[in-house]
């Protein structure tokens, strides 16, 4: 028997992607004995759903980038165990959604795929591929502290490279560990969900290395280096808040085997340069 979820779909009835999120929820519920939470009713009153939301892992299904279901989960302070975004998946599988509000052949094909992914993920979870992180981090990191009002921003003084998109890389030999800086986690505030990059996938410098998400926004992790993903911080799948605690230590994102660091380096910043940029951003945007 597959894992049984509390399913929170977006129920966007004026968009095909929303209707699809409803269909996906129905099918997963039928096949796994999961329970569906009606987002419209949940907004009005939560007593009916408190129990199921507390007892079962939450699967959030959003139709589009407006992320109504995801935002509702944040509002209700629910922990998200798994997530589907229909619009993103339709791009990923290159299956275009039609313009009618009724589900057609393409939509049902995408629906099958996404439902299977959720059911299959279950099996993979159990197979549990063991991938170990190997980049040896310094035992103690020396931080520069920049304070603005009640917000404190930390920045490691030595050994880290940065890009202007507020991500860092710590390089040892031909391996690197990557993550985001305090500026990112403070701007997003409480991080609710981590979408890891795929192990084994090759990422170009400035390509996307997964994403993190709060009630405020989705932040695409812009990879400072090019390489092949060898490990991800899988603790973040259960505890994305580690990124808020410390994005340089237990909130790291992934590790990569480097493919062309000499050339990547040209477009990276060291502490002295990035600290100026970070301070400027804090002064200009952080309120």
């Amino acid at each position, binding site marked *: 028997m597959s894992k049984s979820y509390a399913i929170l779909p977006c129920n966007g009835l004026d*968009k095909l992607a929303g209707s699809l999120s409803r269909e996906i929820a129905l099918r997963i519920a039928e096949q796994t004995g999961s329970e569906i939470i009606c987002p419209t009713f949940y907004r009005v009153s939560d007593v009916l759903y408190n129990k199921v939301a507390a007892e079962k892992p939450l699967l959030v299904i959003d139709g589009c*980038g407006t992320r109504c279901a995801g935002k509702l989960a944040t509002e209700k302070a629910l922990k998200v165990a798994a997530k589907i975004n229909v619009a993103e998946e339709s791009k990923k599988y290159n299956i275009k959604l039609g313009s009618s509000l009724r589900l057609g052949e393409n939509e049902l094909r995408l629906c099958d795929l996404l439902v299977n992914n959720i059911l299959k993920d279950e099996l993979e979870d159990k197979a549990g591929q063991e991938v170990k992180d190997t980049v040896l981090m310094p035992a103690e990191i020396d931080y520069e502290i920049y304070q603005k009002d009640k917000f404190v921003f930390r920045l490691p003084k030595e050994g880290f490279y940065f890009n*202007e*998109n507020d991500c860092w890389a710590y390089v040892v030999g031909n391996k690197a560990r990557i993550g985001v800086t305090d500026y990112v986690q403070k701007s997003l505030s409480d991080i609710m969900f981590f979408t890891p990059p795929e192990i084994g996938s090759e990422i*170009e410098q*400035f390509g996307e290395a997964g994403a993190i998400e709060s009630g405020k926004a*989705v932040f*695409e992790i*812009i990879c400072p280096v090019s390489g092949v993903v060898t490990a991800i911080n899988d603790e973040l799948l259960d505890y994305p808040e580690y990124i808020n605690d410390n994005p340089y230590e237990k909130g790291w994102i992934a590790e990569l085997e480097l493919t062309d660091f000499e050339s990547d380096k040209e*477009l990276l910043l060291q502490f002295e340069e990035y600290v100026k940029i970070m301070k400027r951003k804090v002064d200009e945007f952080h309120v």
Partner: protein
Amino acid sequence: MSEDTFMGAPRDKIDWAPTIDYTKCNYCMECVKFCPHQVYEVREAEEKRLIVKNPNNCVVFCRACGKTCGPDALSFPNKNETTKKIKEIRKEMEQSE
């Protein structure tokens, strides 16, 4: 505020900003609310009520507002090509020094 260089290359030589697909945009203005860099401008009286006013204010490689757009109306240039372009510009600058 716009910085005039990105990784040492003049910002106005780097082509990086969102493009709005007006056939999809529903003028929800989520992107405008999201971006703190005054890239967009809202124009109440015009037919295109939203334009990319200051493309050079957009942070190179950022695509964040694209993720706030429900109807997926925003697109961005290709990252690899932009990276290549920046490296070329830097090389040219070194040679002319």
